[in-house]
């Protein structure tokens, strides 16, 4: 009897039986996520067509148009600028906030984090509408300032760059705070104490110990913020107004105009920018030095 082979087969069959459960989710992920994305990539290299959604001829022109056009380049530049500004402000605000949250007792920490998490479930539309209600011409801010006599005529607060930045901060700050607070809370208190016992003052202990140890949280927070602020179409269009365009607005506009090859190319440019940003964030924060091999 071939006992060796049968033992191997039995062990393999046992693992395989459980792995069979993966078939369905894996099939869905591949056919409904990876395949459509791949198809989108293909379409981005196809010629536009007047009669069909996309032509049959392969071409680089969809990308070429965007890269060669000053109008597009300006909008891409503006998107990156806004994203970097949002990233910087959210980091500056979220890190101290996360320190506060991480210092709470676990019970309160989870309560506060849940309060920050709950707005993420609320539609971006709703939250952008909140800012419209505050910043609009007849919004809360103008009404109050007029009443107090602070101003004589309503200020144009809405449909500005600042309004977009504020709206993006609203939807993105929770990601940053939760991410950093979780990684700060996971740091063993004894590290900081060890640093202080070795002669580092509180500030240097923070700079040399706490900050590097929190880098995984900072990195993942920054990457989410970067990616989502590039692609938060609803917030950008509601608070920036119809004339304020960012890269993602172009994706939307070309899609509804049935210029699908163009829309696909713009999507991949956006994804590429996001990946580039992510790589830059990883290179700067270097979370790998802390994360180690564990999950």
């Amino acid at each position: 009897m071939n006992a060796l082979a049968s033992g191997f087969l039995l062990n393999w069959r046992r693992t395989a039986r459980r792995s069979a459960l993966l078939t369905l989710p894996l099939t869905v992920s591949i056919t409904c996520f990876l395949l459509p994305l791949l198809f989108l990539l293909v379409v981005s290299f196809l010629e536009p067509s007047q009669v069909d959604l996309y032509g049959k001829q392969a071409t680089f022109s969809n990308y070429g148009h965007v890269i060669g056009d000053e109008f597009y380049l300006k909008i891409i530049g503006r998107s990156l600028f806004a994203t970097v500004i949002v990233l910087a402000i959210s980091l500056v605000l979220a890190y101290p906030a996360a320190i506060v949250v991480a210092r709470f007792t676990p019970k309160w920490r989870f309560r506060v984090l849940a309060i920050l998490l709950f707005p993420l479930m609320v539609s971006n539309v709703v939250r952008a509408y909140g800012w419209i209600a505050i910043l609009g011409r007849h919004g809360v801010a103008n009404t109050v300032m007029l009443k107090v006599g602070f101003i004589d005529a309503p200020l144009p607060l809405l449909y500005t760059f600042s309004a977009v930045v504020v709206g993006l901060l609203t939807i993105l700050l929770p990601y940053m705070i939760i991410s950093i607070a979780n990684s700060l809370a996971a740091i063993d208190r004894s590290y900081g104490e060890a640093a202080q016992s070795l002669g580092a003052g509180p500030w240097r202990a923070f700079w040399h110990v706490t900050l590097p140890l929190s880098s995984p949280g900072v990195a993942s927070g920054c990457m989410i913020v970067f990616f989502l602020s590039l692609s938060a179409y609803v917030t950008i269009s509601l608070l920036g107004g119809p004339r304020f365009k960012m890269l993602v607005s172009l994706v939307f506009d070309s899609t509804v105009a049935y210029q699908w090859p163009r829309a696909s190319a713009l999507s991949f440019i956006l994804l590429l920018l996001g990946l580039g940003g992510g790589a830059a964030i990883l290179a700067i924060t270097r979370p790998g030095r802390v994360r180690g091999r564990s999950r």
Partner: protein
Amino acid sequence: MTTDIDVSLQQVRKTYGGVVAVDGVTLDVPRGSFISLLGPSGCGKTTTLRIVAGFEYPDHGDVLIRGQRVTDIPPYRRNCGMVFQNFALFPHLSIADNVAFGLRMRRVHRPERTEQVREALSLVKLSGFEERYPNQLSGGQQQRVALARALVLRPSVLLLDEPLGSLDKKLREEMQVEIRDLQQRFAISTIFVTHDQEEALTMSDAVAVMNHGVIEQFGTPREVFERPRTEFVARFMGANNVLRGRVASNESELQAVELGTGRIHVRAGGKHVGDRILVTVRPENMSLSRGDVSSGNVSSGISAIVTSVVYHGATTHVYMAAGEEPLVAHLPNRASDDLRLTEGDSLRCSWSEESTIMLADRP
């Protein structure tokens, strides 16, 4: 002929990614016997047990339960009762439901099931705990539930995977007696995995000492304790004085052996002058006296220098160096007080000829 052997392992071998966990283990468990697999962690004892239970399939070799080849039968069709290290009681089920679980899986009807559960719980002295939940029980009580849950199925063999490891010392000793009682009452064949030599010796009919996936010695507790066959078994049983030497001369039935710093006499049939020899002496069998070998009037013994003396309550442990070899002797406190030992003292260690245990010398 195989009917009175409940479990039989035949040349079982198991590797994990090239690392050999169990290497050609052959073992028979006669009906009603209590057998321990004893060894340090990583010696393959737990893997061996899991192969019997069916949680691991061997790469090679066969497992027989009551004469039937079960090598490729999944655990849930093997009828092995298993008690796990941390009991593995189902936290979502009451004590009664935990014990009834296996009966339910065997589709035993409710009235009969209730009766059997009641009986099993009274057997482990837990009547009245039916409606409680595992987290409301102490460690010892959980242990008893785990036993009842396994025994209620009348398994062909009871498998215990370090079941006492998580209990404190006093409870552990109580449970040792209790498990042994239950095992004998049911006359159920049992394989018990432990790394605690005392536990194995007090509970078992036979002990298999394992190392690196191999059974180094299989025998009664007395045999493995008093007559260890290999250096590993000797050391694992606490006989830490292992000495190497050569046969110097044959004198009638005794041979004189040169041991570095002295010479002893052993009964080593079949050895010739010049043969290498490995012996061990239990620390409690050593006696010490002042002076070195040449000054003494006894012809057998070795010289050593005291390196430290540690008080251990009932005994005093004297650590010594005989040349390069470390030695230890456990002396009654009276004897050590009389000697008034301090570090650096020269001593003569001697022991009776019956206390010398010959070990198989592996090159």
